[in-house]
């Protein structure tokens, strides 16, 4: 039986893992390769590394980290951040990444999704969407790290992403991110029922029940950062908890 996936997310700046709270107050937590290996040993199903470095010269440091991660771990991992061209996909895939996530750059140029899917296969294209509730009962797509509202409907954008060839959608809810009060269940449930590609829920995990809830409403995977980085929820315990909730998971 296909299991639901638990995915720790590591934001990397200047070669180190950090975690923002509402995209602010970033604190350094650890070495990406060591932390990646630790999570893999603990039973993480995949890893996501986001390059949050702004400067061009640090891109090379990051590519080097991708290579080191590929040598160190034997589970799939996704790279995101600073991907704006097909050539960027090629670079990180050749460095050993399994999937590449695009966000603002795909909003700006939706054809990037199609071009990358045709060239490297849909399986490696993850469309990451930062979504925030509006007062009309729907969700808007935000870009630039959650600072700019595009006015685009998040569910429509997710559907378009699927049609363009994305293999997976990672939906990050800005309202719940960093607040640790649970994932946006309504948004994840809507997307899961409307789309035929897998959905990764992101933003809001605070306790083990939060993971169970979002996976029960249809998300195929749940992503989190701080609860793992600060060892508030050990992945081994989380998997046992989910198993006891009759949610199919891979336990190590």
């Amino acid at each position, binding site marked *: 039986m*296909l299991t639901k996936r638990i995915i720790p997310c590591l934001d990397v700046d200047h070669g180190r893992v950090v975690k923002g709270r509402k995209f602010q107050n970033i604190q350094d937590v650890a070495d990406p390769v060591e932390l990646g290996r630790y999570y893999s040993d603990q039973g993480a199903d995949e890893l996501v590394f986001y390059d949050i470095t702004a400067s061009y010269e640090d891109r090379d440091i990051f590519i080097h980290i991708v290579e080191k991660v590929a040598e160190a771990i034997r589970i799939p991992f996704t790279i995101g951040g600073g991907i704006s061209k097909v050539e960027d996909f090629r670079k990180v895939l050749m460095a050993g*990444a399994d999937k590449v996530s695009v966000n603002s750059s795909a909003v700006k140029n939706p054809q990037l999704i199609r071009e990358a899917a045709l060239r490297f296969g*849909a399986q490696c294209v993850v469309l990451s969407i930062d979504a925030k509730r509006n007062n009309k009962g729907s969700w808007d797509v935000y870009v630039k790290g959650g600072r700019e509202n595009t006015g685009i409907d998040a569910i429509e954008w997710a559907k378009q992403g699927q049609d363009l060839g994305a293999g997976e959608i990672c939906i990050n809810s800005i309202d719940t991110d960093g607040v640790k009060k649970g994932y946006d269940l309504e948004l994840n449930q809507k997307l899961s029922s409307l789309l035929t590609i897998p959905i990764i829920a992101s933003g809001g995990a605070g306790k083990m029940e939060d993971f169970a809830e979002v996976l029960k409403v249809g998300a195929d995977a749940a992503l989190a950062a701080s609860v793992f980085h600060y060892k508030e929820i050990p992945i081994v315990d989380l998997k046992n908890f989910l198993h006891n909730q009759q949610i199919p998971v891979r336990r190590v």
Partner: protein
Amino acid sequence: MIAIVDYDVGNLKNVATALGDVGLSGTITRDKKVLDAADAIILPGVGAFSDAMDNLRKFDLIDALNANVKKGKILMGICLGMQLLFDKSYEDGEFSGLSYIPGEIVKFDAPGIKIPHMGWNNLVINRDSPLVKNIGTEDYVYFVHSYYAKPDNFDDVVAYAEYSVKVPAIVKKDNVIGMQFHPEKSSNVGFKLLTNFKEMIS
């Protein structure tokens, strides 16, 4: 030495790295002499079926693969590389494969399932083989694919995973082996499977 066929279908380094874990030395190559000299050949691959076959033709590799398979050398296809071992695929058209294992590649079409079949699924053993020594139904491997193999003879399936249908996960016909999932990304279960592969070729 294991030849890892390089035909421009994604990163092959991860396969070489995982072979290194079990003490096998992988050489990424499209040189026919290296294929002929290898103890076994691995055909990896991600992307579209027709592009992959086009590239095998472009690099003039099909005759070398045929000759080595005919000699009895072990050839193992991984992911798309496994699908190429069959007669044909219906991925975006109808395309011929290498025809080492009778059968065809079709798309998942059950209502309500997510496509691609992406993530960790467990292996159910269909028939005994040294390839699945120490492998049981609690062993999960990492899949990512939208099309699956429908072999003419289900006895060619060593292990399968349940995903709306019995999805062939490990296939074997004589000296030709296929793994639909990624052993190089399947943590300690992948390690066990590659260890079994090593024992089979030595």
